[in-house]
């Protein structure tokens, strides 16, 4: 008899336990991986996916019908623009520009996808936006034509009439077109309805003027960029913390699950180990058995868990999030379509999870064996039999 025969027999004779262990390891890997990856992706797009509802409620309570989360040009409400221009003594308040990361990337490569060369100035401005500077004196709006082609250019949430957002996270349109803001208003059916105005940061130094303007024009609610940032920050932090906690809980639950499996697996064999010891087996021999057996279980679990993890995450990412996209016209920033299945997969995070599960599996096995073998004195073991 070779001692490995004991391991082999154990794995093949106790099929239910073996299968349970393999599935358990695979499940732990899948759950922790999917949650970690989704959390990671969510964190980078949180402000888009979940809007700051409580604050919007607060804004709505102030009597605002429509909220525009963009630095607007007065073309949305020409009268208001005119008033603002005059009031703040400036030439023009910039319009909305929704840049696209891909386009920006193309721009850096000296190739602008879908954008005429002459419009590069707009892209420059959009870059400034991403760097936290407002484009000066812009009279145009730039959005992706993906929405326009699908006639979905309603940058309004179903629940909250949000027009759109200028922010790094929100610019994930497939292509760029240039559209006059008045056309956008017509297409969105909100001609002249916008009464909440975000103003660029360079105007914020005139905060007293803004307050005064709001007092004089009670139907207009001006949100400064710092107010907007505060809203984003609070809600973003809250949601990020929430998903991070969920992720930690999932990872914790996975590790506890692995621990429980090991506990079950090793203590169900404690009698075998006790017999080995009574017969005169070395502790090292038993540890070797535990490690080899757990390694086999681990590898089997990973063989199942790795493809299932990739598939599960990709399905959730590409399919469920796609559904979310379809249910709201407000762009979530998640990639669309099946062709993105492997695109968003973060291998480093995935390998990190594999290592954690592997170390937990083997580590717990050894710790539990150590505890199990030392839990009773040999004489007590003997008494049990």
């Amino acid at each position, binding site marked *: 008899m070779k001692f490995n025969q004991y391991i082999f027999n154990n794995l093949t004779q106790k099929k239910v336990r073996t299968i349970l262990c393999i599935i358990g390891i695979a499940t732990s890997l899948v759950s922790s991986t999917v949650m970690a990856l989704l959390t990671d992706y969510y964190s980078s797009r949180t402000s888009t996916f979940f809007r700051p509802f409580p604050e919007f409620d607060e804004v709505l309570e102030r009597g605002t019908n429509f909220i525009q989360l963009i630095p607007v040009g007065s073309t949305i409400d020409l009268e208001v623009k005119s008033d603002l221009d005059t009031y703040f003594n400036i030439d023009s308040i910039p319009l909305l520009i929704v840049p696209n990361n891909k386009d920006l990337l193309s721009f850096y490569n000296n190739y602008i996808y879908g954008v005429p060369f002459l419009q590069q100035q707009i892209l420059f401005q959009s870059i400034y936006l991403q760097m936290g500077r407002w484009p000066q004196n812009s009279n145009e709006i730039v959005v992706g034509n993906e929405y326009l082609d699908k006639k979905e250019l309603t940058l309004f949430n179903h629940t909250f009439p949000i027009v759109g957002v200028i922010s790094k996270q929100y610019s994930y349109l497939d292509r760029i077109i240039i559209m006059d803001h008045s056309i956008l208003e017509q297409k969105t059916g909100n001609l002249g309805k916008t009464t909440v105005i975000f103003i660029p940061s360079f105007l914020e130094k005139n905060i007293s003027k803004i307050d005064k303007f709001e007092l004089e024009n009670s139907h207009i609610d001006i949100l400064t960029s710092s107010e907007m940032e505060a809203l984003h920050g609070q809600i973003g932090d809250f949601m990020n913390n929430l998903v991070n906690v969920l992720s930690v809980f999932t990872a914790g639950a996975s590790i506890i699950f692995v621990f429980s499996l090991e506990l079950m697996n090793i203590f169900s064999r404690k009698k075998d180990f006790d017999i080995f010891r009574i017969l*005169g087996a070395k502790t090292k021999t038993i540890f070797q058995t535990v490690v080899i057996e757990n390694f086999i279980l681990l590898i089997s679990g990973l063989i199942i868990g790795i493809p299932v993890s990739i598939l599960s995450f990709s399905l959730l990412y590409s399919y469920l999030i796609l559904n979310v996209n379809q249910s709201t016209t407000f762009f979530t920033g998640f990639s669309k379509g099946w062709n993105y299945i492997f695109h968003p997969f973060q291998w480093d995070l995935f390998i990190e999870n594999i290592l954690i599960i592997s170390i937990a599996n083997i580590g717990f096995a050894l710790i539990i064996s150590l505890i199990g073998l030392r839990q009773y004195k040999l004489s007590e073991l003997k008494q049990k039999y």
Partner: protein
Amino acid sequence: MNSISTKTMNQKEEIILQLTGIEKSYKTYSETLHVLRGVDLTIHRGEIVSIMGPSGSGKSTLLNIIGLLDTYDSGMYSIAGIDTTNLTRKQKQQIRLQKIGFVFQTFNLIQTLTVQQNIELPMNLLRKSQENQHKRSSELMAEFGLTTKKKKFPYQLSIGEQQRVSIARALVNNPVIILCDEPTGNLDEENAQTILNHLSNLKRFNTTILIVTHNPSIKQITDRNFILSHGKIEQQA
């Protein structure tokens, strides 16, 4: 003829196991329980010895000490000429593996190993070659009528067969003594008698056997019988 007879006598006289003034006590919350109060016992090679006694008399404790599964408070215990007083855990483990065979009331076979694998297990722990393992296990399986069952797992065997496997496993490393804890305790009368016959047959190999039991019929195969009572051991007439 004379020299053979002398040699046999010398073998017979060889002390396999010697306990002198062994004491053992357990501390409970309220009191100290003196289980063994100076046990003296000497067993020679080839002897079959039984220890009987009422429950709680310390039989199992004594067997644990003899099997190096437990320590004693005072006294001297040597097995095959080795003083066990200052042995390390590893040394005790080696002695258990090489010099002691265990037969339990509940057999304690590894359920996931076949009959042959169970028998070969102690040899494997001693890192004997595969060839030697197979040779020895085949001999023992033939001896105990288990050859046709060698591929069976313990749960596929009758209780009597399981105990025979257990005895074969105890013998596989040619130990100097076999310790049997109630070997017939779980068996019906017929199987018990079979096991007793097998144990008795081991005399042919000059095997030393110490049996702890409640079963008085054990006396039919033993050379000497001891009674353990109140922590003291006495030989029966």
